[in-house]
């Protein structure tokens, strides 16, 4: 045998040994469509599989397949919910006590019975400091939630009670008309007590209950295989209460963080959905492959944080001058090119909410404000830096803004790039001047974009504080009338924009490449895939990329 062939054979044998049992699972999109296995890139490796410790979009998208809360986001609408583990629910008059009636055939994915007590136990677990759950504060909405977290009351006093196996009563700290939307968030979902207790300590991070052969959930799918840094695959959960209406037989999540790599995989026909599209390729896809590219607004706000404790930047006129001197449309048209919307305020468009439209591109105004603050034509303005992480879009935006401020206001600005974790730490320590940042909605309500600016709030990170603003947030939390509450939030956003600790930039879009075989990809603001509704058709219909996608 010639040495080269021998070598090839040897390597193949080695490689086979190294491939940890991929079996008959499909790896290309056509096969996947036939077998109803959805292949999606999920961008990053999950850091946790313990539902209650999850804190990122990546983990959230996986958890949506493995677990389910009381209610789910409506598959067609962003501002509604549909039944999840609860088939129906009602609230008292002031919307502070909510009663949920669970599905009759609710079960865990191992067939164990699912009861209202599971929710109660889960909330108690989440509200223990030892767990170290980052989203525990979501449950402060429960009566005695915060006191329980601080260890001041007994577990039994928490405002979560199982009336019987199929009825759960939640008592909240105040009227919360939009509670069902909040309850869509993972922090309100249940974890399997019987499994956690079986394999180790309830709060122990090394408890192996999330291993691929042990994890139990209550969602439309259950964990099949988890190969760290390769993929995580879920398969149909026969015990799911609505299993008959789940169309897919499985989902495979990849964790590819490089958008050039995922685009190549897509073009080779190895993916049904990418996470994003390379910045430079977006215009071409939008123009030539409108049937493949899926471009939609995603309820995210992108902005600059301003460190209001720095000289010059502590002057509100300076901050407003900087905000007025941003040509947002030009950044969108020339840098981002994915149909983002210029942001005049902090909160993206949401039905029923009146946005604050404070800032447009207004040079005379900007120059006047800067002169009033004592820096006519930028003279004597201290040099400062824009802090960004190592991300291509943020670099290009920062450079564009740098040029805008220099040309329009005569201000000299530098750009500092830091590793992501350093960039985050710098913000937390207020060790920056101006910083590029973004916020994705946790749940579909304007409060998710406004609450964060509360005095000393963990995500404020600007040093800004305003008593009137804080008071309005407190009022909003006590308001039982939905429409009135939204009005209060608009007022709060008005104060935020007037004081300008943030310079709004744009409202984000998602640009994903979606295989023609995919049916029901939700173009929704929260961008959460509805796994139990998604479908794949075989053979895939014709598309503008057939030459690449429909070959094997």
């Amino acid at each position: 045998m010639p040495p080269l062939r021998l070598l090839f054979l040897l390597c193949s044998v080695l490689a086979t040994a190294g491939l940890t049992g991929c079996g008959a699972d499909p790896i290309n999109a056509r096969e996947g469509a036939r077998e109803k296995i959805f292949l999606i890139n999920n961008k990053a490796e999950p850091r946790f599989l313990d539902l209650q410790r999850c804190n990122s979009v990546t983990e959230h998208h996986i958890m949506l397949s493995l677990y389910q809360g009381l209610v789910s986001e409506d598959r067609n609408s962003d501002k509604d919910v549909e039944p999840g583990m609860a088939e129906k629910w009602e609230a008292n008059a002031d919307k502070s006590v909510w009663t949920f009636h669970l599905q009759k055939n609710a079960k865990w994915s191992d067939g164990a019975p699912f009861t209202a007590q599971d929710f109660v136990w889960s909330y108690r677990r989440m509200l223990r400091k030892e767990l170290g759950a980052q989203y525990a504060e979501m449950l402060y909405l429960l009566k005695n939630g915060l006191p329980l977290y601080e260890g001041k009351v007994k577990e039994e006093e928490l405002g979560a009670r199982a009336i019987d196996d199929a009825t759960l009563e939640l008592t909240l700290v105040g009227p919360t008309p939009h509670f069902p939307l909040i309850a869509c968030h993972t922090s309100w979902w249940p974890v399997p007590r019987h499994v956690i207790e079986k394999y180790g300590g309830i709060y122990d991070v090394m408890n192996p209950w999330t291993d691929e052969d042990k994890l139990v959930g209550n969602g439309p799918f259950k964990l099949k295989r988890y190969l760290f840094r390769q993929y995580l695959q879920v398969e149909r959960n026969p015990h799911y209460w609505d299993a008959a209406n789940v169309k897919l037989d499985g989902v495979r999540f990849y964790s590819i963080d490089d958008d050039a790599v995922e685009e190549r995989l897509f073009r080779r026909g190895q993916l049904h959905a990418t996470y994003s599209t390379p910045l430079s390729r977006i215009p071409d896809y939008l123009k030539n492959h409108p049937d493949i590219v899926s471009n939609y607004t995603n309820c995210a706000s992108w902005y600059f944080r301003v460190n209001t404790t720095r000289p010059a930047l502590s002057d509100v006129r300076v901050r407003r001058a900087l905000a007025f001197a941003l040509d947002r449309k030009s950044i969108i048209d020339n840098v981002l090119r994915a149909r983002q919307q210029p942001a005049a305020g902090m909160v993206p468009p949401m039905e029923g909410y009146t946005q604050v439209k404070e800032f447009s591109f207004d040079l005379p105004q900007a120059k006047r404000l800067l002169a009033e603050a004592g820096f006519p034509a930028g003279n004597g303005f201290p040099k400062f830096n824009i802090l960004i992480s190592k991300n291509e879009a943020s670099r290009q935006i920062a450079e564009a803004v740098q040029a805008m401020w220099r040309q329009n206001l005569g201000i000299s600005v530098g750009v500092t790039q830091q590793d992501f974790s350093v960039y985050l730490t710098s913000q937390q320590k207020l060790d920056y001047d101006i910083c590029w940042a973004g916020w994705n909605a946790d749940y579909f309500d304007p409060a998710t974009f406004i609450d964060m600016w509360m005095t000393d709030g963990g995500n404020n990170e600007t040093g800004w504080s305003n008593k009137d603003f804080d008071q309005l947030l407190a009022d909003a939390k006590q308001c039982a009338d939905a429409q009135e509450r939204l009005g209060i939030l608009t007022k709060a956003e008005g104060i935020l924009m007037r004081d300008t600790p943030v310079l709004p930039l744009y409202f984000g879009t998602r640009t994903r490449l979606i295989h023609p075989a995919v049916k029901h990809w939700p173009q929704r603001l929260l961008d959460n895939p509805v796994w139990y509704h998604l479908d794949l058709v075989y053979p895939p219909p014709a598309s503008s990329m057939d030459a690449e996608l429909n070959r094997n």
Partner: protein
Amino acid sequence: MLRFTLNRLTQSIVVILVVFSITFFMIRLAPGDPFASPKAMPPDVRKVLVERYGLDKPLAVQYFTTMGSYLKGDLLPSMSYQGMWNSKIIKDAFPISLIIGLSALGVALGLGLPAGIIAAVRKNTWLDYGPMSLALIGICLPTFVMGPILIAIFGLKWRLFNVAGWFEKTDWVLPAVTMGLIYAAYIARMTRGGMLEVLNQDYIRTARAKGVPGWRVVLVHALRGGLLPVVAFLGPALAGIATGSFIIEKIFNLPGLGQHFVASVFNRDYSLILATVVLYAVLLVVVNFLTDLLVAWINPKVRLS
């Protein structure tokens, strides 16, 4: 030979200890921390995490407890992938890097050695200029250019291989070739240099004068000496090849060790950084040690000095 061996062994242990200590302290000096997340972490939660991983203890205490665990063979849990053991991460990733690395080495030697030998024997002909020019291009062309070119041709155009991932029996081919071509270029040039030097020596002329066939002179008499530079180069290179290339693994989305090397630093995953660096140091030391023995075996001059 025994003294030589013992000597090297002691040196090796010291080197590993120094690498361990320097890494341990240097990563703590870097700004950032393993628990940073885009959504600010409540101080209570941070406190739980910091205590869980013993980061609240004095640095000296942490240093000695960590060393104690390492001596017992426990590489501690990862700090960013909570609930995951470093030893499992390495156990999963290392074989993949090793397979890619060894096959790349095969490609490198398979192409580089013959090219270098032929170029030396047929000096200043097109058999020399041709391969050597290609080798120069190979050295200059970085993997992040070579990789996508190979992917575009063999993956996207001809559809012979997957463009990325670790799923099928043939998935090692493109990464190994990408990596191997670069090393092949180095090896070809080094072999040529080494061979040229040896081919001019008196003992080769003697062999030829005694009527030994030409191919035998080249492959048996000359090659042993001509390969010395390549062997010396391959030792340290092997450790690098085996622990994976970050760029190759990123381009081809391979779940190998190279990705952890870099990602753990970005994540400031103190314990995983330490585990990967120590592993790399151990490999480097072991391979260097073996190379030294091999060189001493090939070349008696080394042993005597």
